[in-house]
């Protein structure tokens, strides 16, 4: 795993130690380790000469900048209207059953986190879910089971 310090330095080098660098830095850390912990945020605050509260306040504004540990695979099921109409409830239930977790929780082996999110722009192909960066559309119970088993295997 790349050192958080190095990540920060790399971004500061290309953007500068400026406020505008904050989001790209936080995003880079989340991409690397899936979430931001207190220490990371303190380091970022020092590098950009901001208060830690300011960094925390910004990070917690954004759903994708998690401040609690997440699983290796973060599953986000769309819960917005078209996907709801297309039956996303069954998909969420299937996932809860399969992973034995509730919404917002992470499996004990730290592999999966189950979440819901708002519209992902696949409304004509609902229900849909995002697993990290991969989108899965027109989900059915069987399709979900297969997808999750594939992830479990890998």
């Amino acid at each position, binding site marked *: 795993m790349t050192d958080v310090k190095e990540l920060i330095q790399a971004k500061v080098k290309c953007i500068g130690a*400026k*406020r*505008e*660098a*904050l*989001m*790209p830095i*936080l*995003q880079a850390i989340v991409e690397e380790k899936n979430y931001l912990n207190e220490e990371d945020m303190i380091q970022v605050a020092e590098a950009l000469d901001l208060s830690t509260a300011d960094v925390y*306040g*910004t990070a917690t*504004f*954004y*759903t*994708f*900048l998690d401040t609690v540990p997440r699983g290796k695979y973060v599953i986000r099921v769309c819960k*917005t*209207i*078209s996907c*709801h*109409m297309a039956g996303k409830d069954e998909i969420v239930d299937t996932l809860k059953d399969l992973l034995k977790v509730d919404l917002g929780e992470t499996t004990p082996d730290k592999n999966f986190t189950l979440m819901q*999110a*708002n*519209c*992902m*722009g*696949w*409304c*004509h*192909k*609902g229900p849909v879910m*995002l697993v990290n*960066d*991969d*989108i*899965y*559309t*027109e989900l059915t119970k069987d399709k979900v089971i297969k997808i999750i088993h594939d992830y479990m295997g890998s």
Partner: protein
Amino acid sequence: MANYKMHILVCGGTGCRASQSEMILDNLKTELETKGLSDEIQVIQTGCFGFCEKGPIVKIMPDNTFYVEVTPEDVKEIIDEHIIKGRRVNRLLYVNPDNQEHIADSKHMGFYKKQLRIALRNCGFIDPENIDEAIAKDAYQALGKALVEMSPDQVIAVMKDSGLRGRGGGGFPAGLKWEFAAKNASDQKYVVCNADEGDPGAFMDRSILEGDPHSVLEAMALCGYSTGANKGLIYIRAEYPLAIERLKIAMKQAEEYGFLGKDILGSGFDFEIELRYGAGAFVCGEETALIHSMEGERGEPTVKPPFPAESGYLKKPTNVNNVETFANVPVILLKGAEWYKSIGTEKSSGTKVFALAGKINNVGLIEVPMGTTLREVIFEIGGGIKDGKKFKAVQTGGPSGGCLTEKHLDTPIDFDNLIAVGSMMGSGGMIVMDEDDCMVSMAKFYLEFTVEESCGKCSPCRIGNKRLYELLTKITEGKGTMEDLDLLRNLSEVIKDTSLCGLGQTSPNPVLSTMSNFWDEYIEHVTDKKCSAGQCAALKQYIIDPEACVGCTACARVCPVNAISGERKMPHEINQDICIKCNACFEKCKFNAISIN
């Protein structure tokens, strides 16, 4: 596209990729290789054709044959029959649902007949990862023309003349906005592309970026040239990985070809573009919030004025436009303002892309001239309602918009007409509902979205919307009163009038429009405690048919709250005041005597 005799276009949009278009592509290439045809036939992976309902789609040029729902196994037949013997594979053609005839040429399909593609002109026709194909379709020609022949003022004049209005929802004239940014003198200015598309039901910006990224890059450079900005930023939501990847490739290629970067086409004009990513906050689509997010702040909106054109990114003059707005720009400069103005309505020129979703047969993206009626969109292009059900309403404009009904079907769609009938263009999402959808629940759904996405900065939006949501929940649970309906309406007006940004100023629209178009349904929920659509679980009624009931007592025994009474061998009855709708009796009854209302 030189030297090849034929081209095979395979949709590489994410939807078709999910249904194996990659394998189709591989099989085509292998099959052509084995048959020794690789030099004569070119296989191209394109962006989305829009007709996602029937994907994966394979199109053969020049004869325009349009194959639908193709599988990797069909490839051999397509090559053997169509490519080698020149015979169309009938079973893969689109079947006209009206008369069961096979249609070979997409031009004759109802879905495409009424459409006019300007913003989507290249989507589905070029390989978005190959700049040469974009160039063959005139990409960067407008930029060349502007840099060589036109002054920045002249470019702005064309944009103003064309009447192009912002497609991100507000409908503000693009040329006028560019002029403001141009007039504000500054050492540094910015051009921002708003690709944070978050309206539920909208996905046109994603498709444009995935299918024709160069159109947006070119337009941003044109905007930079005319407003005096040499730096562009694209703020794109993190939920769109493929669009991000395609943008990166397109930017790199455009730099290599000298369409972006220093001294573009030897004109002395510099323009570079950088990508910035959203992080899952809907409100960042609002332009001031978007700018704050790029500045590294919380994505909260601020009061306008100052408008971004005066004080935007890093307090410098900034021009913000939506993806679809930009995608129209190069064509307008090439074909002229007069041509563009000749399309659409007097106050809304050009075309608009709509995303069809919900209970409609042909879901996907369509582009039609402004002024097309809802009826044409839903019934002729959209192919009508799924499963032969009855049309009930269409929600346009997402959480800021309203629902339109039967009586609005012949309204020509444009910015002003939609507002006049109580809805909004928004970004062009259209969610179609049928007789099984409950309008109160629908309004509740949008409010749930707003409550979650409200940034919390101003209290009318933070608290007011939450109260609206609670009132709607109360009504859908059958606990609403007539006073609640009054409160709902009054509170909606207050939120609209007092919220800080467009989010709160429009969020009560779904409530107000359903109240005005489906008042009976609200009344039914409140006074009769009934939901005709059958969606509100709490209002379901379990009823025993006395004719069918044999009095076996099985239901009474299984009922956990003792709501069922009746003598043995006599018809039983359910006390609605006690029933908790647990479904146990329904499952138990062997005589189908229990029905759900």
